[in-house]
């Protein structure tokens, strides 16, 4: 990248069911928080926030054009205000690109999601193509299950290995005051939980419904240095699409993640991700995704994701702690997972992650995913 983009402030709300709260209140809380941290306001003379980028599925907030009535909360009044209809990591990606383009000096990136007001599965089903896959009733859960079955059978990943991912996630979540689900759980509990969609068990899927919002402020190098003493730099980023039809890909691989990661690593000059990164936040909506995405991210070889989990390298205190925050399996709403990863990574690199802090973290890896069975991946590398 020609110049660096800095994250100068991050915020998140507590993730929980908030049925009584208006969706705008979530946006307001998160965005006000980052504005307070930096002292920035919405101004049109170039001394405040120049641009807002939101992320969130529109159909989740209301039947059509819902964001049209929410934009003003994050400063849309006669200003740049755009919306990415993908996972939040893509909004960060676009925000950084906007700053690199010189079109904005300071950008506010917000993500919001209110699962309590909607059937999440139905909205996800509406992402499938209408003639074939939606007609037979496929949604993101069953797509993921098809991928999980393919992955676990091809590479002999055991149910215990996947259960360990859940146990680790919930254990880590205990240290995270924002996490939704941090109950003590054992491998046995996970394996005994109800089957949701073979081979995915209820405990191996992301807890739902959860509400929450995240916000970050991005700035160009010059302004970032002025705005904070502890800027976190985005060093590499990329997204990549895969086939939509599940049958068109080999579900045991995640080719698009491999491509996205290699592009991002190249920008950041990373050659050995497992060694060079100090912390990683990965969007694992289901337990099998953590080992699979780890393979795609080059943290281990193909088919070795299970062994990586067994080795303890991804635990807190291991070589590369994965999801010290508890990750999506501790309950992060739909569409927010990737942005939450970036927020958590930034906290780690600023040394502000409190009890979940990875000591001396210098380089971090954030990942977001959208689409059925990981169709669209986004990888962002960060440095302090």
């Amino acid at each position: 990248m020609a110049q660096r983009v800095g994250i100068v402030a991050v915020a998140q709300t507590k993730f929980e069911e908030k049925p009584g709260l208006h969706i705008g209140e979530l946006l307001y809380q998160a965005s006000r928080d980052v504005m307070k941290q930096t002292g920035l306001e919405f101004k049109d003379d170039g001394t405040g926030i120049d641009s807002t980028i939101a992320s969130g599925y529109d159909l989740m907030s209301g039947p059509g054009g819902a964001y049209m009535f929410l934009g003003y909360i994050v400063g849309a009044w006669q200003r740049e205000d755009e919306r990415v209809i993908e996972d939040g990591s893509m909004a960060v990606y676009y925000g950084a690109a906007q700053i690199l383009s010189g079109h904005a000096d300071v950008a506010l990136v917000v993500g919001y999601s209110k699962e309590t007001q909607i059937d999440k599965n139905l909205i996800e089903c509406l992402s499938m193509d209408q003639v074939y896959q939606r007609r037979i009733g496929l949604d993101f859960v069953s797509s993921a299950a098809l991928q999980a079955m393919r992955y676990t059978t091809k590479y002999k990943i055991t149910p215990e290995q996947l259960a360990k991912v859940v146990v680790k996630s919930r254990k880590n979540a205990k240290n995270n005051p924002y996490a939704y689900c941090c109950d003590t759980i054992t491998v046995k509990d996970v394996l005994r939980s109800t089957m949701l969609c073979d081979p995915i068990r209820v405990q191996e899927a992301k807890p739902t419904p959860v509400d929450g919002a995240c916000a970050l402020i991005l700035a160009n190098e010059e302004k970032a240095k002025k705005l904070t003493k502890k800027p976190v730099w985005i060093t590499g980023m990329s997204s990549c699409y895969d086939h939509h039809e599940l049958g068109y890909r080999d579900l045991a691989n995640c080719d698009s993640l491999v491509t996205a990661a290699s592009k991002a690593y190249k920008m950041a000059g990373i050659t050995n991700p497992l060694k060079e990164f100090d912390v990683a936040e990965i969007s694992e909506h289901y337990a099998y995704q953590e080992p699979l995405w780890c393979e795609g991210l080059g943290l281990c070889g193909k088919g070795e994701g299970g062994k990586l989990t067994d080795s303890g390298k991804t635990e807190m205190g291991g070589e590369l702690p994965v999801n010290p925050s508890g990750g999506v399996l501790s309950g992060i709403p739909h569409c927010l997972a990737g942005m939450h990863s970036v927020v958590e990574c930034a906290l780690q690199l600023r040394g502000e992650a409190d009890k979940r802090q990875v000591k001396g973290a210098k380089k971090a890896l954030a990942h977001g995913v959208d689409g059925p069975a990981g169709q669209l991946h986004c990888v962002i590398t960060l440095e302090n």
Partner: protein
Amino acid sequence: MTGERIAIVGVGQTVHKSKRTDVNTAELCAEAVEAALADAQLTMKDIDCVILGSFEPADGYSGPDKWIVPEIGAVGKAGFEMQNVGTTGGVVCATGFNMAASGLFENVLCVAWQKMDEAAGAFGRGGGGANEYWTGQFPMSPITNFARRTYDYMTRSGCTEEHLAMVRVKQDQCAQRNKYAQLKLGLTVEKVMNDFLLAWPIRRLHMCPTTAGSAAIIVCPEQRAKKVSKKPVWVEDWFTCHQGGALTMAEDPQASTLGYACKKIYKRCGIINPKKEIQAWEVYEPASTAELRWMEEVGICEDYTAWKLFEQGRVGTDKEIPFNPSGGVTATNPIGCTPVVRVVEAALQVRGDAEEHQVPGTINRALATAYGGQGENVVFLLKKTL
């Protein structure tokens, strides 16, 4: 601007029709992409980033990009989907411009689409843009919005229904010369004035149609653009000027950010006399009557005087003010894609490739806009030379 200077090297659109039963939405997009690639003399291999978008409520999808991507051959490429009601296409272009200017990509493809023949049932119960639970209690639609806007405009300016009809006739005359336009009706002032009244003073002919269509543009940073294209159209500046529900039509019937956006962008680009310095205009007018107000807001004439220009017959493709030479949105309106069509048409004008509806003389600068929601706008300035 610290980023790269950028240019549009290829544009493409489908022939816009009210119905397309021979293709599905993804195949419709592929047609536009094929056209844009052919125009740029590039292949899909060259493209490294795709930005997609459509007005989702009329699409039947939540995140339709996932399904469109393989059909346009964009598997393995970077990208994401953007959306913002009517300005979706504008946001798609702005995002594409940002991506190209960021220096991260060499060739950025922006695609937007809408297949309105499928969406006829989209605006039933609880649907159609009405989201906050009480706005859903009034039959609010662009028709009622523009009825109110126009009513207010007529009271303030003193223009008559006949002037509104003149605007529509001009648009039709322009559309007749555009082979991609949907409605080519051969209208006269009498015909328009006798048309079915939807909500006074809006007649059926004044409103934009529903269209199945798609459009695509390819954007490159400076070095690459000079290498691949003989006629790059430089993107001078762009500004996404939204208002996010800050004002409803009830609060201000003239709510619009267009004037503000234009003032800001003219200042940034050092434009003092827009009427002279910009030679072609492609402005998103969801109703023909809106064109009057938009002409004033973009700085062609004083507030509430635009109707006089029509009375004097000064607006048209080969006339003093070439406003919407393509026929505009009242002739063609694939909602989410419409702003991209505006940019495509503006680029064609700058290149001198608009064929029958080409504005005579050299087009050094062209302005394109997007409109959406209750007065949200995106403004683009394109120019011939750097």
